[in-house]
């Protein structure tokens, strides 16, 4: 029997059970190593800059100072930073809207206010409570996020959110931002520009406003501008009756 014949013979002998064994072992091996690599990567990032509950990132929007142009600039900056808003096939309410311009009129006095509405990063987020797969989650520093790898697209979080803050991706997407993977069939919302905040920067929408109509910072830090301003002025949470303790606060409404 020459070598070639032996090989053929061995091939035949490689029965299904062995095939499954080998495949399973290989898969398990690759999976273990791959997850190891991933974990190490995350661990490195985390150890450099630990996210703790000693901070709580928040935002204060002063509707008396915020102009309509400011709001448009905020929306543009958010779209530019995160790459949403270029959906072509989605119509009207199907398009993503991480941040919206809201114009309200007081029914008694007819006073009109404009404000920017986005994820309010609740301390008790209903979206996180209802998410069946833990895809909706809150970081220790209060930022509410969607893990795009765990999201199954059930949209229960969108049913639960009192602020209409979440969007479902209704179509295939191209040309995404490297730091913000988005995917057809998953839910997304304002991340408070977590990728910038973790580098010590401010969210894109805050940077887009020249005045101090929007202040970003650590709500807990008594030296922070947001903390000091909130101590001085009247401010409100939207749907404060729900007791969700939002991280985005408004004054002037």
């Amino acid at each position, binding site marked *: 029997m020459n070598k070639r014949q032996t090989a053929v013979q061995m091939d035949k002998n490689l029965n299904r059970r062995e095939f499954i064994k080998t495949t399973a072992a290989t898969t398990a091996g690759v999976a273990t190593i791959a997850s190891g690599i991933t974990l190490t990567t995350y661990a490195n990032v985390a150890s450099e800059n630990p996210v703790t509950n000693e901070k709580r990132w928040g935002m204060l929007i002063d509707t008396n100072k915020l102009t309509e142009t400011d709001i448009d600039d905020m929306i543009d900056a958010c779209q530019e930073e995160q790459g949403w808003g270029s959906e072509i096939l989605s119509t009207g309410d199907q398009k993503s809207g991480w941040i919206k311009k809201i114009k309200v009129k007081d029914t008694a006095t007819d006073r009109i206010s404009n404000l920017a509405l986005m994820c309010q990063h609740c301390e008790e987020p209903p979206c*996180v409570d209802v998410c069946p797969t833990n895809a909706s989650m809150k970081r220790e520093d209060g930022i509410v996020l969607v893990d795009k790898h765990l999201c199954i697209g059930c949209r229960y979080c969108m049913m639960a959110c009192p602020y*209409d803050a979440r969007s479902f*991706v209704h179509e295939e997407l191209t040309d995404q931002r490297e730091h913000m993977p988005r995917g057809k069939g998953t839910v997304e919302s304002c991340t408070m520009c977590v990728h910038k905040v973790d580098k010590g920067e401010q969210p894109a929408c805050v940077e887009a406003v020249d005045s101090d109509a929007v202040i970003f910072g650590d709500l807990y830090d008594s030296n922070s501008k947001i903390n000091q301003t909130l101590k001085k002025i009247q401010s409100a949470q939207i749907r404060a009756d729900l007791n969700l303790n939002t991280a985005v606060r408004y004054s002037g409404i």
Partner: protein
Amino acid sequence: MSIIRYEQTQGKSLGFYALIAGLGAFILAALGAVYFMEHNGHHVTGMSNRIVWGLPHVFALFLIVAASGALNIASIASVFNKKVYKPLSRLSGLVALALLAGGLMVLVLDLGRPDRLIIAMTEYNFNSIFAWNIILYNGFFVIIGVYLWMMFERRMNKYSRTIGIAAFTWRLILTTGTGSIFGFLVARQAYDAVIMAPMFVIMSFAFGLAFFILVLMASYKWTARPLGNAIVNRLSNLLGVFVAAVMYFVTVYHLGNLYLAENSGVENFILVDGGIYTKLFWYGQIILGGLVPLALLYSPATKGNRTMLGLASALIILGGIVQLYIIIIGGQAYPMELFPGKEILEGYVGIAAYTPTLPELMLGLGGIAVAVIAITYLVKFLPFLPESLADDVVDPHHKK
């Protein structure tokens, strides 16, 4: 009671194959619709970021709610010891399983990422009613499976009451869970009412029984087996009671909401000036799905007439689908109260529009087809149906 003999249906007639072919066509259409929607993304549906759950959810929740209700017949026999219902227990379990399978199929195939079902099965957030429901639905399959085994296997018959009680308890929890999906949503004016949980339980009684009666009458008619009035009239009366109970809960739900100033807007929307939703409520849910069936079931002219019972059951099913449409779509269409005391002029305005598309409808109907085809096949392969349900077989006191 005489000994009940169960027998498979023959399943060789032209009618059988025509039924299978017809249902098969619906299922193929549903799968085609799913491929279309998943391939393109949900932008090809009528759903949006305002109406996040559309027509598929209406069908899915209808089927899931009806599934737990279809089990009632078996529960009445085992838990409440009404012997006359006992011959129907096997079919009751089967219809429950089939409806749940159909409903879950629709629910899963409407996910944004149905390919990630494995995540839903492995990653649980125990604060989520949805996650609980996943466990409750899977458990329902297991419990009914065991229940059926106890009923089929003679030496296991003695355990069927115990497992029957477990199944009954499980199904009550399950429908409570389904109702709580909406009842615990604080954000929306139409939901956030704990009464929705018991209301869903009562709805399940009515929808499930209506579906069960249709299956029972059709299968006995098409297999030319005797089906006596003793059983049918009891089921008919029971159905009437359940429909009346649903209407009672609907009344209390709306009265409760009307009393609260914060909910008067949404009540006005559903009951008075909500356009399609108001029409669906009064003409569809209340008149066609409630008052007409009650009249058919109880008026002397139509009482005891099988065609009228069939019609009443069909109307109850239709009314049930309409009711879930109003709850699910109407409840989302009405805007959330973001700024009490203020009117929103821009950014989040007014009633959300929703026009269901054909693929969504086909997916929903496909769920019903899956349920019916499962029943049709399984009664052919396993002895679910007693060969006779004539009056003297089921009722020892029956006077000829």
